[in-house]
């Protein structure tokens, strides 16, 4: 099987779905990214190069560079989606949802319910989040908790190349609005990815590692960190399960509760401030549904309740570290 990057896996999913289905189009700021004419072939394909090569292949009718107008980008994509098109709109950084949140949560996410099941909105919003790039307070957030709390919206956080491809294909074929939250920290991560198209269903957790001492639930870029922590713990004879829910909405509650039945100890690693986070959400799930199974208080490893700092030493202290995960697991033992 080919070994490709997370970036390439996303690119491949887009390319294959666009080739398969003409109703799939891309729009966003610099997704094509050339000036037209001579710039086309060397077009950047987005700030992270994720859509590189798609503009030359599918042309300006299907890979659409937009003005900087997020509210209209997301709104127009949602409008087109209601007619049956399958737009993949790119929001360059998830931090920018502030500019277009109304179109996401008051419009796209509500249509199916509010119109009594008559409207469907097969919209994908591809975006990226996460700290570590020295990008400062307005370009480093990971706003999945805000998105996860919105009924009608599905939220995906791929943690590796294989999942990124399968989940994106599923997102494009899905008949509901989906926010596909990529992790900046993972674009260069390599992994085995099948050449052919495949879907990974939503709401099905991936168990990356099995161990009976504790369960670590981690999201997105925190999954590889949880795996590193698991390696270190193994050296001390502590065997942990690492569970990646892959989608925060829907959330695979059953897999989490099943694992808790076996281990009795839960640590949630979430790159976001602690209040109203996924860490708090999963902890509440455990406490309300599996209190009897718990042998120790739930460990929450999150960012502090602060904006993301710029200074490298502060930013490194902001993101949950492998050390903190190890310590949190040990605290439950």
């Amino acid at each position, binding site marked *: 099987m080919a070994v490709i990057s997370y970036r390439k896996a996303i690119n491949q999913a887009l390319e294959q779905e666009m080739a398969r289905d003409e109703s799939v189009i891309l729009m966003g700021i610099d997704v094509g990214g050339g*000036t037209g004419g001579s*710039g086309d072939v060397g077009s950047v394909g987005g700030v992270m190069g994720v859509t590189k090569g798609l503009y030359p292949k599918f042309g300006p009718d299907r890979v659409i560079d937009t003005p900087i107008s997020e509210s209209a980008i997301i709104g127009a994509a949602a409008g087109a989606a209601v007619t049956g098109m399958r737009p993949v709109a790119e929001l360059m950084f998830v931090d920018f949802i502030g500019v277009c949140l109304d179109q996401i949560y008051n419009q796209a996410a509500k249509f199916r319910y509010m119109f009594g099941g008559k409207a469907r909105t097969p919209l994908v919003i591809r975006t990226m989040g996460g700290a570590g790039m020295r990008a400062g307070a307005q370009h480093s957030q990971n706003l999945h908790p805000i998105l996860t709390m919105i009924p009608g919206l599905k939220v995906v956080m791929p943690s590796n190349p294989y999942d990124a491809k399968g989940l994106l294909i599923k997102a494009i074929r899905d008949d509901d609005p989906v926010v596909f939250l990529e992790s900046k920290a993972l674009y260069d991560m390599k992994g085995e990815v099948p050449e052919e198209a495949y879907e990974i269903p939503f709401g099905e957790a991936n168990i990356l590692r099995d161990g009976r001492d504790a369960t670590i639930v981690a999201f997105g870029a925190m999954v590889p960190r949880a795996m590193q922590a698991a390696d270190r713990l193994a050296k001390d004879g502590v065997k942990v399960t690492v569970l990646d829910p892959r989608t925060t909405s829907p959330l695979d509650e059953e897999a989490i509760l099943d694992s808790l039945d076996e281990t009795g100890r839960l640590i949630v690693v979430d790159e976001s401030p602690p209040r109203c986070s996924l860490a708090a959400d999963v902890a509440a799930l455990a406490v309300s549904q599996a209190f009897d199974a718990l042998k120790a208080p739930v460990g929450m490893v999150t960012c502090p309740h602060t904006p993301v700092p710029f200074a490298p030493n502060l930013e490194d202290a902001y993101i949950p570290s492998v050390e903190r995960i190890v310590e949190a697991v040990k605290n439950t033992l």
Partner: protein
Amino acid sequence: MAARKTTKNPNVSAEEMLGYYRDMLLIRRFEEKAGQLYGMGLIGGFCHLYIGQEAVVVGLEAAAEEGDKRITSYRDHGHMLACGMDAGGVMAELTGREGGYSKGKGGSMHMFSKEKHFYGGHGIVAAQVPLGAGLAFADRYKDNGRVTFTYFGDGAANQGQVYESFNMAALWKLPVIFVIENNQYAMGTAQKRSTSTEEIHKRGEAFGIPGELVDGMNVLAVKEAGEKAVAHCRAGNGPYILEVKTYRYRGHSMSDPAKYRTREEVQKMREERDPIEQVRAMLLTGKHATEDQLKEIDKEIKEIVNASAEFAKESPEPDVSELWTDIYAEAPAA
């Protein structure tokens, strides 16, 4: 570049001209140094250089008075230097150090100085436009005669909140000058590919806001247009739009190889329109300054910039406890 405005007979003294030369050169050399420090790994993340656009902010600062306000985007180093903020404090923010304007917590895009009436570098494209209207609202409310320079780009001019702000500013006659720094690109997108009508200075017409196209490579033309706009605002006539045509020589940020335009296009601008070279030529041909005088200025600037870089390297990293400060008015519980 269309409708070029030239100032043939400027009412500007040799001393003032030398001042503009100096201020533009400071920005240019500062930015070159920032680029070097970035290359050396001392600065990380986003770093948007202002090289090529110096005449815009220097010309407008020449039209400003003490107490006038300014607010801009992430491409903010030039604005800060031009309004008198300390080069060392700016550079140390770029390196994320304690001595930076935001104690290292903001970075290149996010600094603020109440003393210099600089209300920030802002990272969300066009978010500074309503904020600028709000600064002007406060001045109007206090009836203090101040004006606000609200800077944004050609790309930002396509955000909806710009037009919400135009309407409010005109409705309430706010003393705000909307300065559109049209450097012809928004990241990799050329203006003509993103903008239905290229003459963005006319976009205020629907709101009754006068607008003007200005040659942003000519500091005297910018100053003259700025003075007109300032007079309009101070007289209580409400907002004014200046579309200042300019050009950025470097990529959008340090990580941009700028493949979306030709090398020749950039080279032509540099050779034929460079704002600093233009002033230099005016100074020398008009015999307002000698080569030696200009060399002296070059030397002085070099010293300021080198000192700022030294300071930015020497200043310590912020203490980790700073992670938890400045979140709310109340200090965090110990």
